[in-house]
Structure formats: structure tokens, C-alpha cells
């Protein structure tokens, strides 16, 4: 047992950090610090910088452009990325559909899609959730019927993140309606430009438009767009969701936010002096930092375990990462709310003329608080995670 980072790992961290300092566009960074939304262009620009460096699909097998890093290196990379902060690679392409394609796809699919994913030639979105499915994903109803050399797709997906930017979607569709729930589902990819695809934005309570409903009305999809075998889609979905754990704790994000809290708390006054000088506030912040440090260590233990024993099946400890990670993210947004106090109220203070610079720093804090309520809901709600721990770890 050696609980320190090796010299090599420390050097790697320095290299990564330096690269971000030199290459993340400053405006992109600033917007992330302030909790603002980035434009599609800003994101794609950065991802292509990352891809050029060879770090765009770092965890993929080397043959498809991966880096061959150790799990600890991946951890360091992710933490530094979140902490800089810089936009994380588009999960839907890089972490989700990519691994499914290189694991279950045929040669033609690998050859065509993988480089395009790495370079974000296609912006991917995910077609899993449906109205009414929620935590019971397997109850999905979207149908793909085989007609000649086409799939005819009908149905509706929801919570489709950034579908407004998307070129491609990977979709779970029911291909055998007579089969039992988890059976009879296939994994099909297709263009969002296809005729019959409609995207309707869902405005979230923070005022943002990250998620969408997507409607399929007799969408025609070439038969070769099936990934893997017909009716095996549920297996691929499970595989995909098991891969989704990387960075689920979002330690770097919370670290960055704690730095922001400290920064604001040294500027905002309470009782005539900066609020950071208030011992009660400081102790509350310290409590959050301690939880976060514990989470970081827990994550490192999971990472080290993967390094030692291989990824294998989903580690139930990742439920701990999800629960604590989401709680801490929510706490940090609550602390930010507390710092700005009455100045949390203004909504869109820029107005149309963008002139209210005085209050600029507060603009995204309440929306960020509201928006972060989602983190204990999505990706398997914290209640579902507790079920998983009870069953898979404790045998209850």
C-alpha cells in the first residue's frame, strides 16, 4: 500500500495542467467558471484542440486513438480538466457510443464512425429515456420495424441532452414487441437530419435549454445502422451505462466550485466584512471540503482497484461516488447561494443590452443551484443507487 502519487504521476499532472493553461481558450474557461452555457462552436473548437493533441478519446484502445494511460492517469487528466475548468469531451460520442461501436460494431462501422467521433465531425446525442420510462428504462416503447433494407422508427425520446446541436443519435428501439421487457430491444444509430425527426426543447427550471424531446415519425434508417446483433440492444446499453462511471463523482468540478466560493466569499460582505471571515460560514465550507477530500480518496480507491483488477463488471462502489458526488455538487451550489444572499434574485440581469456588469458575477448562481438539483436525479437517481448498494453490496 502506497498512498502517494508517484513522481511520474506528478509529472503527468504537471504536463496536463500546463497543456490546459496553454490551450484552453480563455473565454471558454471564464464562461465555465461563471456557470454560463457555451456555444456549440466554443465546445467543438476545444475538443478539436484536444483531439489534435491525441487526448480526445484518451480511454479508448490505442488502436482506435486511445492513449494507453493507467487508470490513475485518466483520473488525473479528468480532475485537471474539471478543475481548470475546460469542457469535458462530449460523453455521448466519446464515452458512450464510441465504446459500443469499437466493442460490438462491425469493421465498416468502426472505420467510419470512430474517427468522426474523435474529431467531433458528428455531434452525438443519446436516445434512451422516454416519457414515462424514468428509472425503469427497459419499459421503453419507441419501435423500429424492419421494412426492406430500412428500419422504420416511430416513437418519442426525452431528456435528450443538447439534441439541438446533434448530427447523430444512438437509440434504443423495440424491434421485437412480443419479447419480454429487456429482450427485443436493438441499438440503432442514425442521422438527426433524417426526415421525420423533430426536436422540441424542454426549458429547465434554471431557464436553460440543455434537454429536449425528440419525436420520430416514420423515420427511415438504413438497415446497416444497427450496431451489433438485433434484439441485443439491452446488453449494449448496460455495457454503455457501466462505462459511464468515469468522473461520475465530478471531484474536479466541485474543487473548482469551492475555489469560486472562496473567491466570492472574500469579496462579498456580511456584517460589514468579507463573509469568508465569518467563522460559521468557514466551518460550513470546511465541512464540504472534507467530504470532498474523502470522496476524492474513495474515487482513487475505485480507480486503483480498476487498475489492479480490470474494469470488469460495474463496481458497486460507483454508487457511492454517484451519491456523494451529487450531494457535494449540490452543497457547493447551496454555498454559492448563501454567499450572494439577496443578490441571488435577479434573473438575466444583463437584460437585452448586456449592460448590468455590476451584478454580472451573480447572474448564474441561482440557475446553477436550480440546475444542480438534477444531479441526484439523472444517471440513476440517488434512491436507485441506494437500492444498488443494498442489493449488490450488502446483499439485502
Amino acid at each position, binding site marked *: 500500500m502506497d498512498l502517494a502519487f508517484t513522481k511520474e504521476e506528478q509529472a503527468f499532472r504537471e504536463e496536463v495542467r500546463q497543456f490546459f493553461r496553454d490551450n484552453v481558450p480563455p473565454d471558454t474557461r471564464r464562461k465555465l467558471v461563471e456557470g454560463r452555457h457555451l456555444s456549440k462552436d466554443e465546445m467543438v473548437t476545444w475538443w478539436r484542440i484536444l483531439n489534435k493533441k491525441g487526448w480526445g478519446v484518451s480511454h479508448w484502445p490505442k488502436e482506435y486513438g486511445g492513449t494507453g494511460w493507467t487508470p490513475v492517469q485518466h483520473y488525473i487528466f479528468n480532475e485537471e480538466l474539471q478543475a481548470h475548468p475546460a469542457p469535458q469531451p462530449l460523453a455521448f460520442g466519446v464515452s458512450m457510443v464510441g465504446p459500443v461501436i469499437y466493442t460490438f460494431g462491425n469493421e465498416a462501422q468502426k472505420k467510419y464512425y470512430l474517427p468522426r467521433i474523435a474529431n467531433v465531425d458528428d455531434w452525438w446525442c443519446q436516445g434512451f429515456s422516454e416519457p414515462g420510462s424514468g*428509472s425503469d428504462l427497459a419499459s421503453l416503447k419507441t419501435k423500429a420495424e424492419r421494412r426492406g433494407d430500412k428500419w422504420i422508427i416511430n416513437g418519442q425520446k426525452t431528456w435528450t441532452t443538447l439534441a439541438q446541436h446533434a448530427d447523430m443519435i444512438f437509440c434504443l428501439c423495440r424491434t421485437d414487441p412480443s419479447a419480454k421487457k429487456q429482450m427485443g430491444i436493438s441499438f440503432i444509430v442514425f442521422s438527426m437530419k433524417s426526415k421525420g425527426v423533430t426536436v422540441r426543447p424542454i426549458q429547465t427550471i434554471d431557464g436553460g435549454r440543455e434537454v429536449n424531446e425528440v419525436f420520430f415519425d416514420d423515420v427511415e434508417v438504413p438497415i446497416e445502422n444497427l450496431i451489433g446483433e438485433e434484439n441485443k440492444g439491452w446488453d449494449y446499453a448496460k455495457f454503455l451505462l457501466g462505462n459511464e462511471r468515469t468522473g461520475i463523482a465530478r471531484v474536479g468540478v466541485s474543487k473548482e466550485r469551492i475555489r469560486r466560493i472562496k473567491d466570492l466569499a472574500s469579496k462579498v460582505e456580511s456584517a460589514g466584512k468579507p463573509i469568508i471571515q465569518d467563522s460559521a460560514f468557514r466551518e460550513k465550507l470546511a465541512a464540504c471540503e472534507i467530504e470532498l477530500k474523502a470522496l476524492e480518496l474513495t474515487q482513487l480507491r475505485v480507480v486503483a482497484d480498476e487498475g489492479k483488477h480490470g474494469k470488469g463488471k460495474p463496481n458497486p462502489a460507483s454508487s457511492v461516488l454517484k451519491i456523494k458526488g451529487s450531494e457535494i455538487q449540490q452543497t457547493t451550489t447551496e454555498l454559492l447561494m448563501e454567499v450572494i444572499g439577496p443578490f441571488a434574485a435577479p434573473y438575466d440581469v444583463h437584460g437585452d443590452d448586456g449592460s448590468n456588469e455590476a451584478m454580472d458575477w451573480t447572474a448564474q448562481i441561482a440557475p446553477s443551484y436550480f440546475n444542480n438539483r438534477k444531479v441526484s436525479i439523472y444517471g440513476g437517481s440517488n434512491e436507485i443507487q441506494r437500492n444498488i448498494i443494498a442489493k449488490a453490496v450488502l446483499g439485502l
Partner: protein
Amino acid sequence: MDFDLSEEQRLLKESIDGLLTDSYDFEQRKKYMAEKGGWSKTVWLKLAEQGLLGLPFSEADGGFGGGGVETMIVMEALGKALVLEPYLATVVIGGGFLRHAGTDAQKAAHVPSIIDGSKTLAFAQLEKNSRYDLFDVTTTAKKKGDGYVIDGEKFVVLNGENADTLIVTARTKGDRRDKSGIGVFLVPANAKGVAKKSYPTQDGLHAADITFTGVEVGPDAVLGNPEASLALIERVVDEARVALCAEAVGLMDESLKTTVEYIKTRKQFGVPIGSFQSLQHRASDMFVATEQARSMSMFATMANDFEDARERSNAIAAAKVQIGKSAKFVGQQSIQLHGGIGMTMEAKIGHYFKRLTMIENTFGDTDYHQRRVADAGGLI
């Protein structure tokens, strides 16, 4: 000790509940929000018609002589329906200043137009660095002839966008955090030197940041003693806090009801999610939190009439703490139990959550009031 409503109070409750049931469902509310200024003049006049805008004023002033319990009834109903109209700013706060400190002439000039719904007020108090301390005032009111010249900046003035008259706290002498030397002034919103920057707030209300540059007002603008009005401000803000507590209870009641209905109907894995024990227990905890908040809202209402100002403030601070904690828990868990749908603008529940959140940060948050109670030696 009697927690039942009197006959008059029951009628009042039926009246306001009836009005809002008819004219304030969630869809109607969206329309009002889209109106100019962000609320409905029509609804406002209906409130006037039913006498609700005159509720707390004495009969001599043309009002109905309602007390704390009556305001509690109204605010709870307004909370339940998530009402946008500026009742707090105009009737509770504006009316409060006029009732406690207005001269006969000032009352005559303002109260009738509040009661008939023709004018609204706003309270310009918050400054860039004052946070929750009411005595932290840098806006100045300098004597000039009979009147005063007001200079300074006020922020997040609720209903500041629409108000006809502003009630402004300003310092007539002393330094930034001195407790003496603070006055309260009635300033016409269209006075020369008043500049406003308006915006919607996170909870769908409207506010403004307001700059006062050499704003000249006459002697009739002075409410109370211009050199010693902190006690007056504290009294009226305490009344506003009590009103916010009641509003929050209404919001929590409706949040809990909406959430329980949702989990009864929403199905997952073939059963209503309300059949899962962990969600049942969460809902039970929300009920407990709401009942504790209701109790403290009543306590605050009672405390409004305490003779000892320190005892009053301490009790109201305690209520604000309980309401803040309950509101946060009920609000957050309402979203959690709704799942994804709770995160959308289309669902009603998120709007309740946002209003509950903003109430916590209005006139002192949970930690601020908890410290006040602690420094006052507690409640026992």
C-alpha cells in the same frame, strides 16, 4: 389559546381562496406573468374589490382593521397559488410604514390609492454591501431647506419596476453601520433623479436596481423621525418576515400536495412510485417539516403583537429559521420526488421551489436569523 378561525376569518379565507381558485390556476398565472410589468392589473383590482388591499388599515383610514392573523390567512393563500402581484411590497410593507409612522396627511395621500388598487409601492432598502443588516445604510438624505436630497443606490427592489411610490431608507447622519441617523422617505417613482434598471427575478417576480441622484423631496416625504427610524424599519420588516413565513407555508402546503399526487399516479416498474417506502418516508418528512413551519408561522404571527421589541424580533427570527429550513427541505425534495419532470419549466412544482428558495434569501437567511436567536440567548 385557540387555533380555530373566527367566523370573520373563515369568511376571509373563503373569499381569497375562492378568488384564487377562479382566477389563478397555473395556466392563468403564465398569462399574468407575460403581461406588462409581470403581473395582472385585473387580478389586483379583484383583490381590491374584495377589500383585501385594505385589510390591515384601520377603519378610520378606510380599511378593515385586520390584524396579524388576517394577513397570515391572505399570505398563505397567495403562497398556495404562487401569486405574482405585489401584495407584500404594497400592502404589507408600504402599508406597514404608513400605518406605523404615517401622518394623517401622508395616510390621506397614499392609503386610499393602495386600497382601491390604483397605486402600488416598493421598498428600496438593500444596498450593495448591506446584505441583511437593516442599519447598514450608505444612501444619504441631506437636509436642504424644509426637505431632503437623496443620493445612493438600492438593489433588488421588489416591485421597483412598477411601483408608483418608493419607500427609501437613507442616512441623515452618522457612518455606514451606525444604528442611529437613519430615516425613511416616500419618494415618487417618477421624481427627478430616480433611475431604474428593471429585471425579472428568479421566481418570476419583478424587481429593479434604483439609483437616486440628487433626488429632492419635501418635508411631506419624511416617514417618522428622519434621524431615528431604525426601530420603525425593524418593525415593518419583521411584519414582512411574518408575512413571508405565511406565504412559505402556503407554498409548502401546495408543494407537498402536488408531490404526493404525483407519486400516487406516476408509475415505474409497474407500480406507483408512491408505493416505495423510501419515497413514502420522504413525503412523511416533508409533512413533518411543513407542520413545523406552520407552527412557527403561527408563532411569528402571535409575536407580531409582543410588546417587547426584542422578544418580538427574536421570535420572528426563530420563525424565519424554521421556515428557511423547512422550505429548503420541502422544496428540494419536491423536485427529487418529481424526478426529471420536476426540473422543467412546464411543471408547476419547480416554480414553487424557486419561490421558496428566494424567500429564504429575503430579509435575512437561515444562518443570519439563527445567529440572531443565538446572540439573544435562545428561546428557552
